[in-house]
């Protein structure tokens, strides 16, 4: 099988990790609703929270793109905080009203928030009750996207993990791929796996509730996203076995990811070469165009999407960049170990955040490119740094071969722009 070699001077898996605890400049897990509701076309996400939750979703979504989006917030009011029984009745009423107006909804997620967690509103109980009430047409599940428990992409993780226990059981040997991908990317992935002769392939999340994703002792699963720690645990508990691999970012990542699955399914070396040779060449060619801009430049990653280690691996190995700091909200060896093995030794690896201290380090490093959240980007630009918003990496199709060039270009664009602009007098 095609081998992705570790770096000559060793990787980062055993490097010391700088663990920080302080102010975090990240979104909470509710943010995931913005892409999850596009992915699951018959799902509604009902946040049980405060005006702050509603305002976050609105602000993170940028503008109100959808007339009546398939998400909303049941805003807790003073009266709900006074007595618990009341809050459940209120929730039942709001859900009934919502479902009667939206017959297209087949699955409803009750999404816990900071306030609902703090007042210990039992949404699991509510979901059970509401499932009985609205079965069989609507399935009601719950998960927490609260900031006290989840960081940004962990919201998707919590959502997918909540779906695992209600998946139908199967004895069949199937591949399950977990992680929400844009449809165009998902179709490419399915095409590659089909060409390799691997199947049946099931998806979590499926686009609609009645699609045939099932799980059992003969299920093997791959993760398409590096932030699915709880989903990994839930799938393992359900009897499925994980295929550990680097994540499918860039030509190398995609090859390593496919290669691990191909090995599991006994795909021959020739077949693998035949299927991947052409797209690999295309991907390398597309990456090379952006790498001209990126090569030799330094990068600094603020913790945000949990994709930082994977992206640092891509940028250093395939685009010729060097990383000064790679920070992630959380690092889990089962998921990120294979990536850290490939990431050339050198950068500070950090977990968690104390944003003021980290800003001090970024300003001292003065990296050529800083990958950070929207709250920090303009202030850092004003300090003369060049930045890439991390949230775009979650919203844009960046996985697998055909997007490898786009992924590299996302990082090259701010640098190219800076080179292009002439905002001073000629003399």
């Amino acid at each position, binding site marked *: 099988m095609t081998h992705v070699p570790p770096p000559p001077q060793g990787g980062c898996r055993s490097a010391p990790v700088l663990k920080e605890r302080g102010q975090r400049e990240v979104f909470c897990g509710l943010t995931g609703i913005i892409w999850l509701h596009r992915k699951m076309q018959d799902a509604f996400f009902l946040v049980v929270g*405060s*005006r*702050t939750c509603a*305002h976050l979703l609105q602000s993170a979504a940028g503008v109100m793109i959808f007339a009546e989006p398939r998400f909303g917030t049941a805003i807790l009011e003073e009266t709900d905080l006074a007595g618990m029984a009341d809050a459940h009745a209120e929730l039942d009423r*709001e859900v009934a009203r*919502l479902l009667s107006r939206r017959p297209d909804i087949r699955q409803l997620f009750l999404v816990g928030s900071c306030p609902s967690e703090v007042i210990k509103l039992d949404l699991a109980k509510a979901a059970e009750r509401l499932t009985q009430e609205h079965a069989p047409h609507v399935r009601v599940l719950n998960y927490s996207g609260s900031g006290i428990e989840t960081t940004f992409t962990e919201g998707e993780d919590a959502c997918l993990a909540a779906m695992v226990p209600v998946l139908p059981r199967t004895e069949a040997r199937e591949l399950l791929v977990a992680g929400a991908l844009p449809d165009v990317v998902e179709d490419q992935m399915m095409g590659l796996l089909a060409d390799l002769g691997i199947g049946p392939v099931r998806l979590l999340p499926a686009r609609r509730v009645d699609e045939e994703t099932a799980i059992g002792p003969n299920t093997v699963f791959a993760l398409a996203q590096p932030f699915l720690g709880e989903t990994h645990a839930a799938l393992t508990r359900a009897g499925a076995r994980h295929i550990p691999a680097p994540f499918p970012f860039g030509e190398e990542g995609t090859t390593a990811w496919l290669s691990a699955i191909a090995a599991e399914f006994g795909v021959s070396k020739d077949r693998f070469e035949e299927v991947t040779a052409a797209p690999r060449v295309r991907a390398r060619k597309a990456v090379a165009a952006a790498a001209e801009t990126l090569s030799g430049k330094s990068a600094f990653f603020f913790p945000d999407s949990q994709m930082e280690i994977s992206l640092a691996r891509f940028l250093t190995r395939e685009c010729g960049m060097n990383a000064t700091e790679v920070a992630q909200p959380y690092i889990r060896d089962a998921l990120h170990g294979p990536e850290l093995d490939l990431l050339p030794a050198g950068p500070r690896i950090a977990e968690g955040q104390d944003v003021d201290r980290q800003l001090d380090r970024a300003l001292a490093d003065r990296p050529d490119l800083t990958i950070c959240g929207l709250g920090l980007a303009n202030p850092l630009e*004003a300090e003369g740094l060049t930045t890439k918003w991390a949230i775009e990496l979650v919203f844009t199709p960046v996985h697998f071969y055909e997007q490898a060039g786009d992924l590299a270009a996302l990082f090259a664009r701010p640098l190219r722009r800076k080179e292009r602009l002439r905002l001073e007098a000629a003399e």
Partner: protein
Amino acid sequence: MKLSVWTYEGPPHVGAMRVATAMKGLHYVLHAPQGDTYADLLFTMIERRNHRPPVTYTTFQARDLGADTAGLFKSACQEAVDRFAPEAIIVGASCTAELIQDDPGGLAETMGLSIPVIPLELPSYQRKECFGADETFYQLVKALARPQERTARPTVNILGPTALGFRHRDDVEEITGLLADMGIEVNVCAPLNARPADLARLPAAHANVLLYPETGESAARWLEKEHGQPYTKTVPIGVGATRDFIAEVQSLTGVTTQPDASRLRLPWWSASVDSTYLTGKRVFLFGDATHVMAMARVARDEMGFEVAGMGCYNREFARPLRKMAKDYGVEALITEDYLDVEAEIERLAPEMILGTQMERHIGKRLGIPCAVISSPVHVQDFPARYSPVMGFEGANVLFDTLVHPLVMGLEEHLLHMFREDFEFHDDAGPSHHGAKATPRVEQADTPEAPAGVTVTWLPAAEKELKKIPFFVRGKARRNTELFAAERGTSEISVDTLYEAKAHYAR
């Protein structure tokens, strides 16, 4: 519990952030969980600010809840004071921290800090963003303003402008210039660009100019009561209101100088013949009460539009808005639910909306042009150019703002002359808008009989209706149906259409 999809206002602590971010030398220590930092991007992205808002979030997590969140608050507070060396701090809780009842104000008081600590009580589950800003500014003024002599020369304070406000930056510049023209100096402008030390000097002014009642009225009232400073009640948006404002400032300060109005163009632009086509355009207004009320006057009296409806999302100002709506002969819509606003716009089928970013989206869906006149705002409401809405230049800006979304005057005449010509047809859209404008969604156009009456359009009449330019077709259809219904006619023929046209002719 209330289901909400999009909201006009954020939570009250975001209002406090608007005050803190507007000021200099002030820091806000906010007891809040991870994730509440999203609010930073409102300022750094939408307003393109080049600094982080001066806010420290304590970032407590689930595992801290059983332990020492109060200790976490104290250490975050101490670190913020050490790192940022503010002249004063405000401390408070976001919605989640309010539930754990750590009392940030009390905690900060015990820390023996050498700077003023102003505690904020902002009930997250009852109140909203405007209240948060107004209350924060009021608490700051109450804590910091010091009794003192009035200045020798006539001076005023400008109250209310905040970060993330609709055109606050340019309004302040315009009104400062207008006052300077009158020989009146601005003693302090706050919160925008003020330091805590400036708030101490507020009582030195002879009067207060309250530009934004939503965010500055409580402070203005307190200064009147406590320091005997009268404040202006007119918001100088539009020509008439600016003239009234000048008269009010003159009466409060005793100054008689008139400001230079030579750059004021709105009156002639509106009187010139090309503007004839603006006559009687039906507009619907929605936003914060102050901007809506001011813009209703501009729309009716200075543009010659017809106000078809108006409303606001901030209930605190429902009473004056209701009163004005009554004077204008329309029903006021007071709601925080944008679906109600959308339904009302669909029902009224106005020719233009003057609203917020929410109404701009509603307008896009319904194919009705919209000019943004109020918060909530988006990045495009922070233009690079100087673009006030207050004072004389503000009036000029408003003329352009209100005319731009419409089909141009001469072009409208051409559309009338060459109706359904192969080049001048409905779907061509305004020619100055570059890309082909979205064709008007036929929604406002679908036959909709008044309740209880069945009115049928005969095919010939339906065809004739199509020849009427799209921007008046909705009105023609509605008027004809109303006309038919009033006369008990169940079928609309070409004759009915033209009889109705004659009946409603102006």
